[in-house]
């Protein structure tokens, strides 16, 4: 996708004209087959009524006098996601860097980073939510214990996802060949400078797809924050469902999540494709030393 100029006149870059025709036909046939099976199933009437009732789809999207609007509630998911994502990007990088700091003096810091990632990758998010959301206010610690449940929810999301994302960063950093650091050091860059200007720019670019993958997961997991009391999209759907005894509201919530996720997924694809093209074009990625494109003056073009 993305580069329409190139694909014009010769079909999809990946498939070619004939292949596009075949793939389109097979896709249509596949979905017709699924539609027929679903429509002819003995329980299709009742399932259609409970999950895809037009009146309920519309009504739950907009809300009723007693049930909140799923669309409005979804804004809370987006808000939590945006705030959490910004904090996670920074915090996880710090953790990954701390984990990589050499020298015996820094052992305790490395140990803390390791223990942190081990624990928070292992503990289910819902448990962290309960411990932060019900535990911290229970402590009676003044300011710390009187924040809103949304704040506690975001803290829990940040704690868990930073552990994942730190590992993603670390994998990226480890994937940059030792010779890059060695070359940077031989040019007179300090350890920190070579990390900042040579290793990180390459590492981060490599891990953007898995990073975005984690963020799609984060986006969906914002729904779990509802256990602490606030009404986000999935909870709004649940309220509507319980009131009307109909699941259509869940379908509405699902569609809203998908609507946000698809552009993110396509954006990831786009970044991967662009990266591949750049590498195929022969130029090394910005930041890399020891190649034509890698002169130090164009180094700081980091997260490309």
């Amino acid at each position: 996708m993305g580069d329409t100029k190139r694909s014009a006149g010769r079909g999809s870059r990946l498939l070619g004209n004939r292949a596009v025709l075949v793939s389109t036909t097979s896709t249509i046939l596949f979905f017709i087959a699924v539609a027929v099976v679903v429509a002819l199933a003995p329980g299709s009437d009742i399932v259609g009524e409970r999950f895809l009732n037009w009146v309920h789809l519309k009504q739950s999207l907009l809300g009723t006098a007693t049930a909140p609007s799923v669309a409005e509630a979804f804004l809370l998911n987006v808000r939590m996601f945006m705030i959490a994502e910004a904090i996670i990007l920074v915090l996880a990088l710090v953790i990954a860097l701390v984990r990589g700091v050499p020298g015996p003096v820094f052992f305790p810091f490395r140990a803390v980073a390791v223990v942190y990632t081990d624990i928070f990758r292992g503990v289910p998010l819902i448990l962290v939510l309960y411990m932060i959301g019900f535990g911290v206010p229970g402590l009676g610690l003044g300011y710390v214990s009187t924040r809103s449940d949304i704040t506690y929810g975001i803290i829990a999301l940040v704690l868990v996802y930073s552990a994942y994302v730190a590992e993603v960063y670390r994998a990226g950093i480890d994937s940059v060949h030792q010779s890059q650091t060695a070359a940077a050091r031989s040019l007179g860059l300090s350890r920190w400078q070579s990390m900042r200007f040579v290793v990180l720019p390459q590492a981060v670019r490599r891990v953007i797809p898995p990073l975005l993958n984690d963020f799609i997961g984060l986006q969906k997991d914002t729904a779990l924050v509802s256990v602490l009391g606030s009404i986000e999209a999935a909870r709004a759907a649940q309220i509507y469902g319980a009131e009307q005894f109909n699941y259509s509201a869940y379908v509405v919530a699902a569609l809203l999540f998908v609507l946000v996720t698809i552009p993110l997924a396509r954006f990831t694809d786009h970044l991967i494709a662009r990266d591949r093209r750049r590498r195929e074009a022969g130029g090394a990625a910005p930041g890399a030393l020891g190649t034509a494109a890698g002169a130090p003056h164009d180094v700081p073009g980091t997260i490309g």
Partner: protein
Amino acid sequence: MPRKLVAVLAALLVLAVACGEASDDSAGESGAQGGCELSDPPTLEGGTLTVATDRPAYPPWFEGSPKDYSGFEGDLAAAIAERMDLDIKWVVEPFNKSYAPGAKNYDFDINQISITPERAQAVDFSDGYFNNNQGFLAAEGSDIGGATSLGDLEGAQLGAQVGTTSLAFINERIQPESDPKVFDTTNDVKSALESGQIDALVTDVVTTVYLRDFEIKGTEVIGQYPTEEPFGMVFEKESPLVDCVNQVLEELKGDGTLDGLQEKWLQDYLGVPELSD
């Protein structure tokens, strides 16, 4: 690629329309069930009445283990089985699943479920067996402790369990200044009240008294509001058994058995001052 995407979307649309159309004619009809032979009730398993409720099940609605529940609802179901000359068997059914389409592994669900017209479009209800009032539980000595009307609760941070009529009641009748908090289970609402995340917990008045006496120290029931919502047993739509259960329920009401059960299990829970509008 874009063409393929369009094709996928078109196919999805076909799918949605197919399901949507198929569903239109089945909507809105109420369950008209014919006569049911009490001597030969059409249960799932011959000789057994399979009854479902959620877990954990709370006293005084349920007492004891799922093998042989007692409590108000437990005893009521047992009495119905006895009148039909059937053995009783309990199974677990989460509230949110009780209205799912598809075959059920029980004859009916009894779980303090209020009868509403909207819900009655999706499932069949028995006649009511208890009239529920909304109750309000707050920390002892809190600002809203002296509330005498619903208006006094407008400024409070209220909390309720998802799927309860309490939540609809808050939104419709109290319309508080800040949105109510909503939780998965009564236990979670309890935690929120204990940790001060909410000022008052709203649920049926019986449960509020139970929580005050046995679960959360230092709380008081501020009052109850007489909504008088009937609780009903939930059946699959068009279930032939509803009529039999209603016949038995009629008997139990007529000969004072139901009143006796209410007195035995719920008496201590109902003496709570009423709140005005």
